[in-house]
């Protein structure tokens, strides 16, 4: 960090880091949401990505191979989730729960089999995620330079994905058909297209981004902790709604959640609050945000 940082700059810097998994999962979840499916499996998909990316990174010593395998495994789980939901016509909410339960059970069973523990698994030989190097003059922009630069590459990849997803959703035939599927699947059928195809594509995209989000969680820690995702998938889902189902809206909502968590991390050091309360804070704030949003929407609707 540069010398002119006040208290708030590292707070925001960390928020940008913390928001990234929310944002990634949220962007992926946006594709399923637009295709008309409630995707609560984000949590489980993320967990699969988290576990397999670090295990493969440790086994191969290659960070990118690890991340790629993490993403791949998350997409495979998404494929299972999507196939059962769409081909066997199961309730998407229940299969989402199944995916979360499966991921948490499967990762523990494998961890136990491979490392003979159900607790935290530390990995020694995990390389650090590379930090994006930017020209010095950018880094020296007051405040913004300290906040925006110096993050690992997944953060910037995420920003690129936000942009890319906006283009795909609003500018391509795929996006048009995906949105059409969510609004009126009958129309898509009447044109001879398959709504299921676009829904499955949405699920696979969410598998991709959640895999990446999970990878970021474990590789940053160089450790796997059972249930490391700890509700982030759910918070990402709320970010989709708070973000009004637009990529940039989700980015803003994710930032708010990132800021909350970042702030509570600081408060934890500074003030004597039990850690359980601080851990509960994101949920409480999310409920509060959700209810305030509902009240606002309600008052607008009945005006």
């Amino acid at each position, binding site marked *: 960090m540069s010398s002119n940082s006040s208290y708030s700059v590292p707070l925001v810097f960390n928020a940008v880091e913390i928001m990234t998994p929310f944002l990634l999962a949220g962007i992926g979840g946006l594709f399923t949401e637009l295709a008309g499916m409630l995707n609560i499996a984000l949590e489980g998909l993320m967990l699969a990505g988290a576990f397999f990316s670090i295990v493969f990174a440790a086994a191969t010593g290659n960070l990118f191979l690890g991340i790629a395998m993490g993403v791949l495994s998350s997409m495979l789980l998404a494929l299972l989730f999507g196939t*059962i939901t769409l*081909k*066997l*016509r*199961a*309730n998407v909410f*229940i*299969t989402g*729960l*199944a*995916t979360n*339960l*499966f991921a*948490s*059970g*499967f990762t*523990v*069973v494998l961890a*136990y*089999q491979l490392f003979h523990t*159900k607790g935290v698994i530390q990995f020694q030989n995990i390389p650090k995620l590379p930090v994006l190097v930017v020209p010095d003059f950018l880094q020296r922009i007051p405040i913004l330079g300290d906040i925006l630069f110096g993050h690992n590459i997944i953060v910037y990849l995420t920003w690129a994905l936000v942009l890319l997803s906006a283009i795909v959703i609003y500018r391509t035939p795929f996006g048009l058909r995906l949105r059409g599927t969510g609004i009126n699947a009958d129309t898509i059928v009447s044109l001879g297209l398959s709504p299921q195809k676009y829904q499955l594509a949405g699920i696979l995209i969410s598998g991709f981004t959640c895999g990446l989000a999970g990878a970021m969680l474990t590789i940053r820690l160089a450790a796997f902790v059972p249930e490391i995702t700890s*509700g982030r998938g*759910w918070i990402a*889902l*709320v970010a989709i*709604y708070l973000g009004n189902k637009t990529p940039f809206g989700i980015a803003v909502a994710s930032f708010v959640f990132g800021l909350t968590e970042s702030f509570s991390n600081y408060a934890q050091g500074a003030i004597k609050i*039990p850690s*359980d*309360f601080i*851990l*509960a804070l994101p*949920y*409480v704030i*999310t*409920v509060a945000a*959700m*209810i305030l*949003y*509902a*009240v606002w*929407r*309600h008052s607008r609707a009945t005006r």
Partner: protein
Amino acid sequence: MKGRQSASGVLSTVMGLALTILFSFGLVILLIFLLSKMPAKTIYAFFIGPFSNKYYLGNMLNVAVPLIFTGLGIAVAFKSSVFNLGGEGQVYAGGLAATIACLAIPHAPGLVGMALALVAAATVSAAIAGFSGFFRMKWDADEMISSFLLSAAVALVCNYFITGPFDDPNNNILSTYPIAKQFGLLKIFPPSKLNVSAFLAIAAAILVYIFMNKTHAGYEMRMCGLNREFSRYGGIKVSRYLVLPMILSGALHGLGGGLMVLGTYQAAIKGFSFGMGWNGIAVALIARNNPLGVLPAALLFAYLDAGAKSAMLGGDVTFEIASIAQSFIFYLVTAQALYDIVRKRRRA
């Protein structure tokens, strides 16, 4: 008075469920073959272990008790098309509330303390769930997400109380002080932990069934669950039935948690009820939200749980293979195509 399915519909549902369960059992066997160095012994332990002695059998039945309560809680809500996803936190909070009530009156007579503890458990959890119902009624805030988020927060707050103010420093697990001896429920199948709460669970299932199918409020609640617009059109006070099912659901979850403390643990242990809420959803779905069907469905889940425990002790696999088996029940329990296949087969 209740909606009657055709006989073939019932049969195809039963066959579909049987397939689902067989598939998950098959998956367990496959997993054990892959993971275990002594698969035969482990498989035996998983499937036969729970019946091998009174201790295992009784404990299995005892695990079913809270599952019956959470399953009923979910069935009541789902039948009303109100989605309570906060079961996890509500069971936990109910257990903690019962514990605190007992700790507050250590010298009260047994029955008084038990009754107070259960009232406290039901009230606290009903209130937690009721909030989500209220927000839904008042501002149309999605009760599914709010109940989940509230439950997640509540569970953490409960953790704080169990490991903080009420922590018993005299034991080396994270748990509260034990409740007074006279509040423990009577054991009915020693040496196992099975206790009189099993009778309460059966009674609860019957009462919920009667309530849903024979009473005025039950009829209105079911109608709202099937078609809210129709109910409003028919003159039913619909908003009431966004809150009431949530309160009933919360109360049933709370009772489940409270009975776990009184009957089994005699204290609130950190994380003691985890999984009961989620599994309650699966139990209710297997039972097709029929209160009486919850009884066998809960036994099935308790069996998977007991099997995994037995396989862990008598074999060499970890307990979580139960979650994998359970997840596949989740996967397939609503899979429409599975039931259609059975139906077509029968027709051909």
